């Protein structure tokens, strides 16, 4: 019997940033989910020793072999052009709106921002962070957009559930009601 922990390590290496889902691990190794999870945990633990340079991360719904955060400074010495390429504030805004409202049309994004998002949206699609996920039933059947696995990986998130929670400012409906009525009174 082959040591499956070793096989799993090799599989993760080969897949790189594409990673492996739990399902595909089960299928390839012909094992049950529980067994696959145990294997992953065992491998993950052995990587945690400080004489190892890799780590298993769950990013964008897949297990991926990555380097360790604490070794970052050494990898940066390898970079020819170490300047940080990050997304523009406008791009982050559009991404946030899509992430919390998907599926959403471009018109709805524009409405929220009060400005055209056409160019930004196209750039995000070309970066695979956003994709078309269908057509709206509204007149003209505009495209509906949603976030991708690449989006989750880009922000180091495992699944959609890991999105930062938006502060609910209007949590108390009664308070809003009261506020509105006072406000109206002030007017008249």
């Amino acid at each position, binding site marked *: 019997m082959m040591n499956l922990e070793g096989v799993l390590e090799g599989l993760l290496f080969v897949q790189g940033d594409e990673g492996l889902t739990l399902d595909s691990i089960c299928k390839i190794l012909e094992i049950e989910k529980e067994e696959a999870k145990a294997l992953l945990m065992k491998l993950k633990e052995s990587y945690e020793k400080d004489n190892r340079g890799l780590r298993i991360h769950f990013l964008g719904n897949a297990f991926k072999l990555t*380097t*360790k955060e604490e070794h*970052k400074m050494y990898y940066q010495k390898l970079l020819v052009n170490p300047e940080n390429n990050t997304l523009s504030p406008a791009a982050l805004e559009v991404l946030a709106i899509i992430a919390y409202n998907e599926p959403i049309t471009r018109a709805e994004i524009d409405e929220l921002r009060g400005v055209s998002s056409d160019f930004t949206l196209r750039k995000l699609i070309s970066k695979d962070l956003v994709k078309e996920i269908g057509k709206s039933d509204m007149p003209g059947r505009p495209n509906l957009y949603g976030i991708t696995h690449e989006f989750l990986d880009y922000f180091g998130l495992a699944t959609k559930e890991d999105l*930062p929670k938006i502060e609910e400012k209007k949590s108390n409906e009664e308070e809003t009601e009261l506020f509105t009525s006072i406000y109206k009174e002030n007017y008249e």
Partner: protein
Amino acid sequence: MNLKIHIENFDGPMDLLLHLVKSTKLDIYEIQMSEIIESYLTYIATLQQLNIDVGSEFLLMASTLIHLKSKKLIGKTEEEETNDDEFNIQSEEELKERILEYEKYKSITEDFHSLEEKRKDIYTKVPSNLKQFERKSELTNDGVTIDDLVQAFLNIQARLHYKEPVETKITKKEISIEDRVRKIRDYLKIKKRVFFEELFDVPTKEYIIATFLAILEMSKAREIRLFQERNFKQIEVESV
């Protein structure tokens, strides 16, 4: 009004409105929206006076705000309200809601930015290229020699030979007037007198033309005589 703020720093009119709200240092629920509307309009007006190009979306918002302001001044009645469809913000409360909604996403972008930065601390690699391991279908050599290959090639050549089109020549027979003159002369030697149409025994254009010209030539040389008993009767040809 702080004029050091440049319009390009604002990512659209909602961003500018949010900035104006924040610069009051008050909670949005305590702010009089009319003041925010005033500051927005003053700001846009100042920019225009300074000949600074203001984006159309900022102007659209300005017109929406002016509409809100005038609505409040006039004190609209119920039925007038129905004709306001072209403005997507109908009340100051709605404007406030819209700014709040925008702020929700604006503020979360900072979280995304730090997540983005953190993710850059780890590296992954692109998937390995496994092409080299792809199994190719095995070839076996059952005593095939180079001669078989040559023979195969020759067979193809032979077959190609059959496919070649058969050479043919398409030529046009030239009919000269002299030729026709001679033929008509011979004919008339035997038959003395013939019908004009009789001479046109081959129905091709060239033959008909050559024959006609030959008849004209012979007639001109007074070698033959053409006559017709009466109109529409057949023309007859007679050698002189």
